[in-house]
């Protein structure tokens, strides 16, 4: 982000919101006490705005689609397997990858707060952290999918993973038909954030043609 446009400069002439003032007070107190370094805060914000995001998880999924050995290793120990890739952000501990099949669809939620695989997907969208999703995902996952425009065959089993500890989950969606011979880079463009949460499917190749 631009230098300190959040803070002391660049906002003259505009009215600061109550939240801006409140957070600025907090940052000033913590900085004056030596607890936080504003330059480090800048770097954290920049990392999540520009470096860490769903493109990382998409690369992992695309590799799993083309490399059965990697897929096996990923499903066995995702933290270890993703460590073998050169990613912008190394995966932390206790990452668990779960794969969709024609008979099983996986969906990830955190009913108690907002646990999410930040290392693979970046920061979660607002809906993931919202009461409608957190309340319904465990009880009515088919209704949740309908809100996202996804209809699975009634016979497809749905498995919901509630992230109630420090384990983190990423869904490996099914590889779309019509992508035979595609390389990892092309395939990665089909892997959406929602498909790795389990509220969506990978894109149809026609959508990116």
């Amino acid at each position: 982000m631009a230098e300190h446009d959040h803070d002391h400069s660049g906002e003259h002439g505009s009215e600061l919101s109550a939240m801006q003032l409140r957070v600025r007070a907090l940052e000033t107190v913590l900085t004056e006490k030596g607890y936080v370094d504003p330059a480090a805060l800048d770097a954290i914000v920049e990392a999540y705005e520009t470096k860490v995001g769903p493109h990382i998880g998409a690369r992992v999924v695309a590799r799993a689609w083309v490399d059965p050995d990697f897929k096996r290793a990923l499903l066995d120990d995702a933290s270890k397997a993703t460590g073998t890739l050169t990613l912008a952000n190394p995966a932390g501990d206790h990452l668990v990858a779960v794969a969709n099949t024609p008979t099983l669809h996986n969906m990830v939620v955190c009913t108690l707060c907002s646990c999410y695989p930040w290392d693979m997907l970046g920061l979660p969208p607002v809906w993931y952290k919202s009461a409608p999703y957190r309340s319904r995902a465990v009880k009515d996952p088919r209704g949740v999918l309908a809100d996202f425009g996804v209809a699975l065959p009634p016979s497809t089993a749905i498995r919901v993973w509630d992230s109630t500890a420090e384990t983190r989950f990423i869904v490996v969606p099914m590889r779309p038909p019509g992508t035979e011979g595609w390389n990892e880079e092309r395939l990665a463009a089909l892997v959406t954030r929602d498909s790795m949460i389990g509220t969506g499917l990978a894109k149809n190749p026609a959508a990116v043609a």
Partner: protein
Amino acid sequence: MDGIHDLGGMDGFGRIDAEPDEPVFHAAWEGRVMAMQRAMMYAGAWNIDMLRYAQERLPPRVYLGVSYYERWTLATESSVVERGCGDSDELAAGHALRPGRPLARTLTAAAVAEGLIRGGFERAAPGPARFAPGDRVRAKNIHPPTHTRLPRYARGHVGTVERLHGCHVFPDTAAIDRGEDPQWLYTVRFDGPELWGPDSDPTVSVSIEAFEPYLEPAPDHS
């Protein structure tokens, strides 16, 4: 605690409203408060379970009524005070009025890349695991008044142990500054109708990540 944060299975919140092309942050202050939390946890001021517990103790109408990062801001303010890092008069003044207690370390810009790598929560096991994959277990009917990670919808219900994840920091004690007290952690899967009744969708199953103190052997007949 049986708080408003424990939302799993509640009705009435309406449809899910996904914002197309959502930005990472909707205002610059959201990024600042997220980053402050990361920096303060890196410094050892508090831990992730304390952050969660601070949010859970917000009044229910506040918890539901404010945005996600407003909740983080409120929880950061209360944690600063509770953890001896500042006082409310300082937050009101917007300046430090006295020195804070020393913390273990300060996150510098140069250390951010390393500081953002997710830390490990696995610890040495104090003893053997009580359960194994395939075991039938019941989530205990417990209602601790403080932080717990056993959701209400699972309590009293019988499921199957699927995975053993090793021994992990126990949130119930870590959140209230009573140490890490590592406990075995399991993935426990419940059939939908076990949780939501015989009329619910039989193709649904739900798993939780359950610490060993949350579980007991299932009764023989189940």
